[in-house]
């Protein structure tokens, strides 16, 4: 069983989507399970995945979210790598195309180029071209001259309409600015005068213009920005006729670009392969995820592109007991009693009491949590920081009911059981714990792990090949070490529950 394969044990997220535990997060402040769907995603940092350079967001925007040094192949979208060639300073034909760094130090070492004059100076210069190691495309294929420096000097592919785009952009930017100014002016006029002597309370200099206006002078600092005029685009019905040879010339498909090649070069969308141009590599992001309800971060990666660490990591597997399916005792048959072995692991530093229930526990505790939530969202600190930041609005979640997909009848456990705390040093202990009085369903217990036997009966009307899904509520005690309120209190204990579905396998024939 590879861990890349989908897990048979799924947890219902608080938004109602089933996920394996490794895709879930646990908000300690709510405290609830969250998945990638019900959190807000934010850009933490921009970086180039090829050269691993961290690029600040303003610079990234300036560079149109592209890396300055790395290029993608226009043919196959793989990364281009620079190749060095030694070119004699005396310019001659580019014979040294086939291999990188063909040492042509002297004329005698390259008998394949008879045109070299033996009298020419043996000095060579390193020239670079870009080559795709996936499809063997090179910049020489489209006639881009070799560069003396490996990176940075490659010319941009200026599209035909670049100037037009720039003027349009300028125009609309000034238009936005103008509208903003007008709005401000309107607000200023509308605002009532607060006192008779504004100059006494003035600290900002804004009232200077007010006084000027009272005297009857014109505002001096408000030079209205006039948008530059643009020539409006004109539609024309005249379309060039098709060239006459389009019907007579046989099409050479090798010289025509594919759709994806054209789309990767959206400015000019070339039709022929000799118009392809190296594309700047687009940047990648690191995301931080934030709980939409309490606006606390769930994960926050470290800034550096090569770092794999997190500054905040609230993975569900650190807080919620993990359920691992070991095996079913017998082949699954409809209507026949069976038992499944489940391994529970406690990832926290506190003992947990777990009970498996068939129906949802009462909502009393949930109510308490909700009140706490309100307290969090209305805290002054969050108001101060949260409002100014641009982010997706916090939404009250709409609870989706998980469809009842379980199709087996469980025999409930007689009693709750205790899952002892995680202790990393226990891993090295050899001695077996003295068997204490255990409930009958517990097969073995080792450190923070418990293997238990859960009896169930698949529904009688299941057909061969159908999946048997077990569903239950796992109620567990969770000790929360973060306190939402200002005064430091002892850790609070919650009784949380999450719904778990296990695909135990399919009915045998």
């Amino acid at each position, binding site marked *: *069983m590879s*861990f*890349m*394969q989908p*897990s*048979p*044990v799924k947890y219902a997220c608080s938004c109602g989507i089933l996920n394996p535990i*490794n*895709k879930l*997060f646990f908000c300690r402040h709510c405290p609830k399970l969250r*998945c*990638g769907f019900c959190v807000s*995603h934010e850009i*933490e940092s921009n*970086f180039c*995945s*090829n*050269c*691993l350079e961290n690029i600040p967001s303003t610079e990234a925007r300036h560079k149109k979210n592209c890396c300055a040094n790395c290029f993608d192949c226009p043919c*196959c*979208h*793989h*990364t281009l*790598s620079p190749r060095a060639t*030694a070119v004699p300073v005396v310019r001659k034909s580019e014979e040294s195309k086939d*291999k*990188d*760094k*063909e*040492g042509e130090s002297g004329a005698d070492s390259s008998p394949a180029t008879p045109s070299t004059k033996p009298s020419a100076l043996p000095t060579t210069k390193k020239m670079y071209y870009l080559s*795709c*190691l*996936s499809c063997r495309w090179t910049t020489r294929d489209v006639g881009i001259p070799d560069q003396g420096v490996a990176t940075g000097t490659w010319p941009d592919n200026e599209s035909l309409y670049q100037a037009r785009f720039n003027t349009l952009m300028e125009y609309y930017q000034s238009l936005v600015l103008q509208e903003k100014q007008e709005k401000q002016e309107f607000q200023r006029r509308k605002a009532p005068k607060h006192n008779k002597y504004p100059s006494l309370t003035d600290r900002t200099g804004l009232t200077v213009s007010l006084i000027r206006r009272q005297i009857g002078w014109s505002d001096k600092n408000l030079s209205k920005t006039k948008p530059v005029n643009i020539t409006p685009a004109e539609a024309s019905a005249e379309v060039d006729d098709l060239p006459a040879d389009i019907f007579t010339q046989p099409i050479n498909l090798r010289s025509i670009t594919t759709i994806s090649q054209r789309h990767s070069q959206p400015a000019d969308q070339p039709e022929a392969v000799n118009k392809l141009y190296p594309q700047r590599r687009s940047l*990648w*992001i*690191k*995301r*931080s*995820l934030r709980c939409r309800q309490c606006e606390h971060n769930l*994960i926050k*990666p470290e800034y550096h*592109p*090569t*770092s*794999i660490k*997190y500054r905040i*990591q609230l*993975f569900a*597997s650190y807080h919620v007991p993990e359920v*691992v*399916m*070991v*095996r079913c005792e017998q082949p699954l048959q409809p209507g026949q009693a069976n038992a499944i072995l489940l*391994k529970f692991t406690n990832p926290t530093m506190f003992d947990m009491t777990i009970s498996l229930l068939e129906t949802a526990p009462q909502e009393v505790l949930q109510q308490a949590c909700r009140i706490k939530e309100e307290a969090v969202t209305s805290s002054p600190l969050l108001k101060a920081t949260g409002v100014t930041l641009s982010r997706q609005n916090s939404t009250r979640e709409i609870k989706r009911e998980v469809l009842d997909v379980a199709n087996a009848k469980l025999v409930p456990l007689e009693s709750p059981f205790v899952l002892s705390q995680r202790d990393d040093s226990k891993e090295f202990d050899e001695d077996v714990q003295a068997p204490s009085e255990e409930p009958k369903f517990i097969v073995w217990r080792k450190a923070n792990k418990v293997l238990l036997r859960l009896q169930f009966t698949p529904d009688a009307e299941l057909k061969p090949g159908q999946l048997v899904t077990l569903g239950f509520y796992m109620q567990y005690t969770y000790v929360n070490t973060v306190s939402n309120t200002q005064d430091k209190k002892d850790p609070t204990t919650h009784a949380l529950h999450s719904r778990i579905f296990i695909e135990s396998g399919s009915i045998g024939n």
Partner: protein
Amino acid sequence: MEIADTYYSKDEYVETASGNKVSRHTVLCGSQNIVLNGKVIVQSGAIIRGDLANVRAGRYCVISKNSVIRPPYKQFSKGIAFFPMHIGDHVFIGEGAVVSAATIGSFVYIGKNAIIGRRCTLKDCCVIEDGAVLPPETNVSSYMRYTAKGTIEGGQGNPYFVPAAMQDEMVNYTKSFYEHFVRTPAPAS
């Protein structure tokens, strides 16, 4: 899902003092150049070309059946040169994979029949899908997934391609793989 026990016969595998389990049915060329840092499993049919350059593998690596570990080479004006290859900790290399990367970081998963071209660099916590083919000199950065289609997806914090807790997942997986890779119990009992 719990990993099922994999059994091996006592005659087939050699266990070293540091816990490496190496099959006898492997081709380890230039074994003095191969360093396995402990608790590494090398399964039957694997080929490690230590004769070309040094190969170092960190702790808890799994080199599956029929995979080929071959140090990368670079072409120069005067012939070619081979470069040493470093593999980090907790790396899983799937069955039939051909790897000639320059460096492989820690917590990397390489799927079945993947082909890693020469001088690729795989950073920590990346995933190579089953059957993916990496052209030479490809860089796969952390938390990226190289798909069988040849695209790179993911990024740190993106929960859909590489699990956010990739480090813990790989540690758990390789450790439990090692623990469940056990000798066949003696038939006498």
